[in-house]
């Protein structure tokens, strides 16, 4: 028999059996794998990139919030109050409470694993960050907290015999049988072969969707694939309209070898000034809208994003289309003192902060929305769990700074433990038929080179940035929905391929299949929500509307996105 497909998937698939499959090896996925193994389960930890290299955690430079009470007396309830206030009425209070209550335990566990939290006078040092009522944010050092966290979890994993790590494995779909998750179908990139994985529980730890936007602070593989996997498996998504933009992402001159969100700690330390093209400070013009200023940051993230976008729209932007960030008022010695060797890395990029400002602009940073889960981190599909940024609900309409790594640890550990518990109690529901649709999809791939899918991805990112960015209108959102439909038609239902081994064209097609579904899942609830709240700002509907103090849910059925609404979960137990 002649294989139909033109790629390696035409060969018989490789099959792997395990108790728990964790998809995504960032902070949340690694923690989930460790905890599932600790609970006695056999684990496969799969990532489309190399293990522990992709995702957001390794890129995170900043701080990790938890009520450790090391710097100043604290209680997790205070952390919860701040988290709920930032979420503007939409937090799932039970998930937020889990995050805040479990946070200290997980940070201390990481401390025991020698992550190296910065210390002062014998205690873990905790910094003040915007939106927190007291110093609560631990860090390793200002530019390498994420890498230190990743390194620590990787070395724990290396010692965990029950965890099989498999990199370069792109999960195509979660396998579902009788409504329950039972494994997954994957593409092994180096060989082009299809792989089927039988698992008694599946954990989605794929991070957020900032890769849908032209400028973002995450790795290239953060296109929201986990949301699409969850939707197609029958799960619901929640709060998908809330994409957090980081106001002062680096814009120009081209900065390589450094994270684009690096300016924040320095701005915090040295009081960098945001200037428009008239070289005038403009934050105060927008400050009256904000009652939560902490005195050092004039504006919280969402308002600073608004201020910069408005200045650019009014024709007062910097040449590259953002604002200037200036440290010229700071003595050179003080700059050197705060930046240390970073000054030399900046010099290699042609940046001299004492001489001239840099340009910054809002950059997609984090996704509040995600898979809707219960307190066990299980989606409405039995056997399907989510953790980390892939989970929606804990942060409501706006995330408090410092909560992202904490949620990776806390939700990772819980999802891993609960997935292991299910796996150890249950029988395998695996059946080869559950993988058949995704295998058929891979086998149907055809060699095609038009349209150029890499260019289509660039087009989609521009579209999302320009029409589903931080400031939205009905007209822009409607045009986005139409354009997404057009792109869906352009890529069609048959995968493109160009080679057997490491085929970037097939990966682009599989990515677009996910990205377009997720782009719709952001655009449609954004269109429906006719108010402005947190990270969702409608220029045609300014201000909060109490009638909109509800979460929107996204489901996928018969090829269509379906929206519904639900009141935010409180901590009161319902019957």
């Amino acid at each position, binding site marked *: 028999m002649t294989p139909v497909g033109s790629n390696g998937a035409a060969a018989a698939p490789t099959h792997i059996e395990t108790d728990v499959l964790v998809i995504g090896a960032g902070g949340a996925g690694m923690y989930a794998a460790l905890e599932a193994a600790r609970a006695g389960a056999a684990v496969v930890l799969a990532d489309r990139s190399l*293990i522990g290299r992709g995702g957001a955690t390794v*890129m995170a430079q900043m701080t990790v919030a938890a009520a450790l009470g090391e710097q100043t007396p604290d209680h997790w309830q205070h952390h919860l109050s701040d988290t709920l206030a930032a979420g503007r009425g939409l937090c799932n209070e039970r998930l937020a409470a889990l995050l805040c209550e479990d946070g200290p335990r997980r940070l201390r566990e990481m401390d025991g694993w020698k992550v190296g939290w910065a210390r002062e006078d014998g205690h873990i040092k905790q910094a003040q960050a915007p939106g927190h009522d007291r110093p609560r944010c631990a860090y390793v050092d200002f530019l390498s907290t994420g890498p230190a966290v990743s390194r620590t979890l990787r070395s724990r994993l290396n010692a965990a015999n029950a965890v099989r*790590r*498999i990199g370069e494995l792109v999960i195509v779909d979660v396998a579902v049988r009788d409504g329950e998750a039972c494994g997954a179908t994957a593409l092994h990139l180096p060989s082009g072969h299809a792989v089927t994985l039988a698992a008694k529980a599946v954990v989605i730890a794929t991070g957020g969707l900032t890769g849908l936007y032209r400028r973002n602070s995450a*790795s290239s593989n953060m296109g929201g694939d986990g949301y699409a996997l969850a939707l197609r498996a029958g799960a619901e998504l929640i709060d998908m309209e809330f994409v957090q933009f980081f106001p002062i992402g680096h814009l120009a001159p*081209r900065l390589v070898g450094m994270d684009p969100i690096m300016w924040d700690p320095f701005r915090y330390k040295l009081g960098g000034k945001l200037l428009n093209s008239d070289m005038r400070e403009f934050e105060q013009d927008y400050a009256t809208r904000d009652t939560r200023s902490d005195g050092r940051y004039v504006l919280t993230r969402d308002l600073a994003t608004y201020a910069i976008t408005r200045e650019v729209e009014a024709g007062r932007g910097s040449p590259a289309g953002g604002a200037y960030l200036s440290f010229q008022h700071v003595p050179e010695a003080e700059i050197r003192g705060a930046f240390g060797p970073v000054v030399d890395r900046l010099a290699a990029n042609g940046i001299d902060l004492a001489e001239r400002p840099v340009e910054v602009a809002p950059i997609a940073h984090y996704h509040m929305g995600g898979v809707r889960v219960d307190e066990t981190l299980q989606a409405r599909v039995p056997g399907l769990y989510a953790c980390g940024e892939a989970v929606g609900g804990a942060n409501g309409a706006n995330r408090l700074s410092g909560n992202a790594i904490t949620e990776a640890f806390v939700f990772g550990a819980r999802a891993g433990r609960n997935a292991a518990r299910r796996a150890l109690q249950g029988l395998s529901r695996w059946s080869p038929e559950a993988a058949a649709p995704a295998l058929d999809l891979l086998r149907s791939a055809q060699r095609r080179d038009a349209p150029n899918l890499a260019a289509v991805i660039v087009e989609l990112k521009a579209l999302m940035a320009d029409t589903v960015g931080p400031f939205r209108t009905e007209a822009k959102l409607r045009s986005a929905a139409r354009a997404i439909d057009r792109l869906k038609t352009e890529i069609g239902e048959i995968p493109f391929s160009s080679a057997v*081994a*490491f085929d970037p064209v097939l990966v682009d097609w599989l990515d677009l299949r996910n990205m377009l579904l997720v782009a719709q899942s952001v655009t449609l609830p954004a269109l429906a929500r006719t108010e402005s709240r947190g990270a969702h700002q409608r220029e045609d509907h300014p201000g909060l509307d109490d009638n909109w103090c509800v979460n929107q849910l996204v489901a996928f059925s018969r090829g269509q996105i379906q929206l519904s609404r639900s009141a935010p979960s409180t901590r009161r137990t319902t019957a």
Partner: protein
Amino acid sequence: MKATLAIQRGTPGEAPRVESFDVTFEHGQSVLDGLRALRCEIDPSLAFRFSCINANACKECMMLIDGRVDYACTVRLKEGVTTLAPLPKKTLIRDLVTEIAPPDERLWPRL
């Protein structure tokens, strides 16, 4: 400004071939920027690894650049010819992609 990328391509068992592509660039852009633009504008089938794009955090974009092992995300594009080749001491997968995963993180560790 225009850079010419002379890229060694092919899979194991094939005779390696060098293909040259011209990409326009702005001062300060990286070799990785050039490779990404090349995929969008000329040949999407070109295989190379990257994840973090420009933070030098993931260390995946290591290759031979003008004969030296370096990261495509931190080396700048220049006018004239830049030669790119896969890492010489690693098993070739395709084009600029080599087997750099630790053996116990591969699907088939013995392959």
